[in-house]
């Protein structure tokens, strides 16, 4: 799917009018930057949203399969063993990564204050990325699956993804290299980190699994390390960069504390890469690995607390913006979900809890907390801010944004609750030797049905989001002028 975007031209005064002020020059600058980046960013967003729709369908089907296996039972490619990995990979590689990369590019050019040169190459990288995801997902549906969680794609697809990512990352680093002199804002720390973290994670994991062919528990160790970092480190970095940018930007106040931001970033970079070990508790691996993971998850409280207090102090006095501004509402939901994700990960990593929740839906709940409740909500917030600037018109309908928010917020909340509590109840019942296995399975049924209900709500939300976005890129939006807000507000937040 491709989008044709006419780069918009900057604001310019009429000849003969008063000389332009510094603020106006700043606006010209921003307009030029936005115009240069609009092609690739909108391309990434459009493909990401297309994959989000596919993920929604796959997710709904896999959820149905849990309680009604006969649903679409005639098609082998829709069996649970294929549709679940297809769903997870579509959600992460199809939706989350391109949405994150689109946001990353826009934030990079804005914060480095340079126009993007040769944006067509980035679009080229994006096309490659989408080919890789397509090859991978089709292979999974055909039954070709490496069997490693989050690395299910065959090595051909992984290679395409890696090349595509390299094209994108080189551009990101080039933008950073050519940045305008001046202080490097917090979001940029995370974004530059993300640019280097992803090839490290994806390259090392694929090198170990498909080139060196490590054996036995070493595979589990690699997969656990990759899975936790793919979500925690890579998505975490882009998500936090987005929150760090949009909360101060929309509220019009600086990030409250540079010191807290530093502590938050360095503790994130130091502790998060160790979190994967916690997923190995109970496995036949040297005991220090899970212990290290659990210790790191306790230490991640440092990141969670400093980052969140910083956000809260920045928001102080502007909390009413959650009521008015779509960007702030989605972004703040994401920020809160980041904290919840960290705390649930920490509690879930304790050996006494993990003993019950291992191999249950609890793990899926943690994944959705990170990928959807935190990262995707932050990306929605970013898209609601960025797209009008790149397309040149406003969101058509505040009602559709409102419906999208509430459907996503309630849908993902219900889905995660069903997974977390279902997993906990399931694990406790399995641990009870007096309870027959059949009754344990029956006991889990309501939670599975609850997940399907959550998926129906999510489908509604994503449908409104897609329609609104489609109208936006087709320029059916409101003419530029007033921002589309939930409620009118003095001083126009964005």
């Amino acid at each position, binding site marked *: 799917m491709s989008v044709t975007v006419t780069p918009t031209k900057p604001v310019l005064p009429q000849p003969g009018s008063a000389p332009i002020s510094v603020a106006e020059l700043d606006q010209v600058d921003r307009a030029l930057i936005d115009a240069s980046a609009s092609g690739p960013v909108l391309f990434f967003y459009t493909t990401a949203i297309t994959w989000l729709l596919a993920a929604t369908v796959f997710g709904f089907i896999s959820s149905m399969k849990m309680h009604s296996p006969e649903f679409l039972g005639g098609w082998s490619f829709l069996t649970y063993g294929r549709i679940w990995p297809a769903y997870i990979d579509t959600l992460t590689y199809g939706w989350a990564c391109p949405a994150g990369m689109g946001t990353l590019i826009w934030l990079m050019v804005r914060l480095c204050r340079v126009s993007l040169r040769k944006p067509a190459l980035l679009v080229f990288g994006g096309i490659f990325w989408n080919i890789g995801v397509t090859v991978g997902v089709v292979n999974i549906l055909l039954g070709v699956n490496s069997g490693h969680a989050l690395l299910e794609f065959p090595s051909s697809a992984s290679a395409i993804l890696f090349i595509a990512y390299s094209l994108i990352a080189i551009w990101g680093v080039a933008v950073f290299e050519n940045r305008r002199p001046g202080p490097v804002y917090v979001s940029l720390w995370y974004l530059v980190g993300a640019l280097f973290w992803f090839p490290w994670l994806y390259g090392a994991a694929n090198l170990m699994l498909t080139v060196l062919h490590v054996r036995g528990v070493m595979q589990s160790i690699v997969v656990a390390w990759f899975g936790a970092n793919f979500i925690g480190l890579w998505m975490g970095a882009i998500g936090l960069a987005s929150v760090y940018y949009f909360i101060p930007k929309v509220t019009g106040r*600086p990030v409250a504390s540079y010191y807290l931001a530093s502590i938050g970033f360095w503790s994130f970079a130091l502790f998060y890469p160790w979190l994967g070990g916690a997923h190995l508790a109970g496995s036949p691996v040297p005991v220090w690995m899970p212990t290290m993971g659990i210790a790191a998850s306790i230490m991640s409280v440092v990141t969670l607390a400093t980052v969140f207090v910083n956000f809260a102090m920045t928001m102080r006095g502007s909390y009413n913006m959650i009521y008015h501004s779509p960007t702030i509402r989605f972004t703040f939901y994401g920020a809160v979900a980041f904290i919840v994700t960290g705390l649930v990960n920490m509690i879930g990593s304790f050996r006494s809890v993990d003993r019950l929740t291992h191999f249950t839906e609890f793990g899926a709940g943690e994944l959705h907390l990170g990928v959807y409740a935190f990262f995707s909500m932050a990306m929605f917030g970013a898209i609601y801010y960025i797209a009008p600037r790149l397309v040149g018109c406003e969101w058509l309908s505040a009602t559709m944004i409102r419906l999208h928010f509430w459907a996503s917020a309630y849908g993902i909340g219900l889905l995660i609750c069903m997974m977390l509590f279902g997993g906990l109840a399931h694990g406790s019942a399995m641990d009870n030797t007096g309870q027959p296995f059949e009754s344990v399975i029956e006991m889990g049924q309501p939670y599975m049905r609850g997940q399907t209900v959550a998926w129906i709500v999510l489908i509604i939300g994503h449908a409104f989001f897609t329609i609104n976005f489609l109208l936006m890129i087709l320029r059916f939006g409101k003419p530029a002028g007033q921002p589309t807000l939930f409620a009118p507000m003095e001083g126009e937040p964005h």
Partner: protein
Amino acid sequence: MSAPREPRQVPSPLTDEIDYVETHDVAQVHAAIRREKSDPGEATTPAPVWLMSVCFLAMACAGFYLGMYNGGFDANVFDWYTRPLPGGSGSQVSQNTAVELTPVMIGQNVFKLNCQTCHQDSGLGIAGQYPPLAKSEYVNGGSERLGMILLKGVQGPIKVEGATFGAAVMPAWDKLSDQKIACVLTYVRQAWGNTGGEITPEQIAAARKQFAAKTDSWSEADLLKVPADAALPGGKAEPKK
């Protein structure tokens, strides 16, 4: 990384290249950019003391946990409740958990996997079908007959402890390693009240060479040709007690 370059020159808005015809529309298009607030920076609010306390508490808890359950960072420690001995090092932890296996222990394991189906856990075999090993004249005494049986197998009929086993066929176990054969024979010769001595892997290796030409199984007559107290090469003769 090279130093950031000089600021890029913003094109002067008053050159001839500007398409003024579009300016009016463009002003509307960029209403979003015009109204947006300036890019964010960082203020320097000091970190609250309570927050730093929370951070240090978390670090302390994590450090305590890591110190308690690290298993000495030893690659061979798999139980989270295993801790290094007081004043001990990682190597002591290994000694604590890794047990040196005796030939009899290895032999018992080999027996369970390969021999127990016929000769039974009790070593008594099954009457009329599989000969007993407990107190058997082939097991006790010299080791040569036993080694021959293991390496090449036996074709019945054969008389053991006064009972005749007509259809008994024991396959050759020469696929097992020298060490496993030596260990299982040592085990068999010391279990169930048997009184035979230990057999070493070197003896089995030598016996392999000695009987290399033999392609089929032994008969009872072949075995009885060998003196009852003859030992495998490298061992001393052991009269039946």
